[in-house]
């Protein structure tokens, strides 16, 4: 089943910035997809169209088979959760557990069910020890994990992370990516991760590159990274390890493109004496 499907979707902001025209794009249930693109390439627009924060001009968007329209909007938002970029602007309460409870309360669940949902969401994000902490006292990575817990408490079938790691330090970024990867593998939640960190895209099953509102490249992360020259023209840089592999090859050391430093070290060690 398709978790998310764009059929001939057109959209413009009306100020001539850029437009999405006849976009076709889909994500299968259970997939972990990365959307890459430089600032202003349309990747966040894609996220905002998906859950109806922006209204499309033409075409159709379906989420788990249900067409996105005003009538179905709330149903779809139960299935599709979004985590945004700024950890400070998406909290609604001051205590972690209250913040996580907001979603389930809003859809009118019973008290016991809300309790269960909170337990589940905090456990899945590794935030149990912060249950009664003030959100303002948490690190950026912890705040974002709380935001993910808030989305999880609604038991969504799909999550979109709209540059949810962009404002975090490397440690915070790792925390988020690990949590999301785990949710994808263990809970079977479909994930669409919008990012400009190429390293994060390496963990995904499929990567999609956007430029000026169009999908310009698609494939497994290693297939995408092999096309470095093309990536550069879309304002994306290779991950550092890709740069090193490429330079070593140019210097006559025949190493393949690998993503893990240990693996590259192994390759290099087998080539040099």
């Amino acid at each position, binding site marked *: 089943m398709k978790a998310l499907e764009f059929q001939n979707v057109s959209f413009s902001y009306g100020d001539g910035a850029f437009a999405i025209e006849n976009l076709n794009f889909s994500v299968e249930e259970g997939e972990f997809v990365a959307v890459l693109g430089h*600032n202003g390439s349309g990747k966040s627009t894609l996220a905002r169209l998906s859950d109806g924060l922006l209204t499309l001009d033409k075409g159709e968007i379906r989420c788990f088979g249900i067409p996105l329209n005003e009538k179905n909007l709330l149903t779809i938002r139960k299935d599709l959760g979004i985590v945004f970029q700024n950890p400070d602007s998406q909290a609604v309460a001051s205590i972690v557990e209250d913040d996580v409870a907001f979603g389930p309360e809003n859809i009118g669940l019973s008290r016991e069910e809300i309790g269960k949902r909170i337990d589940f969401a905090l456990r899945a994000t590794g935030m149990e020890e912060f249950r009664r902490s003030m959100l303002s006292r948490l690190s950026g990575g912890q705040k974002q994990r709380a935001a993910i817990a808030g989305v999880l408490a609604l038991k969504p079938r799909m999550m979109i992370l709209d540059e949810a790691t962009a404002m975090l330090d490397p*440690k915070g970024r790792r925390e988020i990516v690990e949590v999301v990867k785990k949710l994808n593998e263990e809970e079977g939640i479909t994930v669409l991760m919008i990012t400009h960190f190429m390293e994060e895209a390496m963990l995904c099953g499929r990567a999609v590159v956007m430029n000026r509102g169009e999908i310009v490249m698609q494939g497994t992360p290693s297939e995408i990274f092999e096309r470095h020259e093309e990536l550069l023209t879309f*304002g994306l840089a290779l991950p*550092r390890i890709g740069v090193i592999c490429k330079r070593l090859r140019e210097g006559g*050391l*025949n190493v393949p493109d690998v993503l893990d430093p240990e693996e590259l*070290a192994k390759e290099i060690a087998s080539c040099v*004496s």
Partner: protein
Amino acid sequence: MRIVAEHLTHIYNEGSPFAVKALDDLSLTIEEGEFFGVIGHTGSGKSTFVQYLNGLMRLPSSKKRRKKKGDRTVLQVGEFDLTRKKTDFRALRRKVGMVFQYPESQLFAETVFEDVAFGYKNFAEKKPTAEELERVVRAAIEETGLDYESVRNASPFDLSGGQKRRAAIAGVIVTRPEILVLDEPAAGLDPLGKREVMELLHKLHGDWCKTVVVVSHDMDEIAENCTRVAVFSDGKVLYSEPPRELFKRAETLQALGLDIPLTAKLCAALEKRGVPIDCDFTIEDFVKKTLARKGGESC
């Protein structure tokens, strides 16, 4: 202007149950002309320290300090002695420019010109003439790589993310500071924007500000760019040395919860496999030294 700090201690909420020691008898010297990196995990004291450099943080009065026995605090930025109350902090702030994290969130004026001019007018001894203002603002905007004619009358809020950041930096360098301090200058930008900001900093370091101090979490950027790096931990400086020396301490740094550059990870992994590579941890040098190990025949 040389920066010298000795025995610098800062306690937030001193004397209350919430007292937190942010700086603990810290000593650090930054020489004129350096491209200096400051690293350390959240809460290690690096932000508190850089706020001292242009007097946003002030030491308690000397009277209070004398009460504590044997106060030996030294805090000197060029000719300014920041331990003294009478120091001209206005003059200091003109010489030490500070670019905060996400500086674009501090843009406020209706046009880019007005925004950049604000800092200059604020610090000028007497009201600058229109020609003078035009000259300095144009120079600052062009130095950051923006096209003066096309942005001068634009609203800073209509610029792209990378352009906003440039405009915000222009508003700081317009007073021609000798020392430029930046907190995470490349955070939140895409890879291309990141590279452009780092290139801008090198350009500024060459022809605009003598000393650049960068607070960053991005170890790869630190390894590529800095002449020396200070590692902050629990309000102290653990190491202050060139990246070449520092990133040999891979295990110590990782134990502190800090990342290390990719090149250092590769060097550590290669060393374990019996292929030590002695490089300065820039990609350039790593590739060169690795290729030098290559035998005659390719594999």
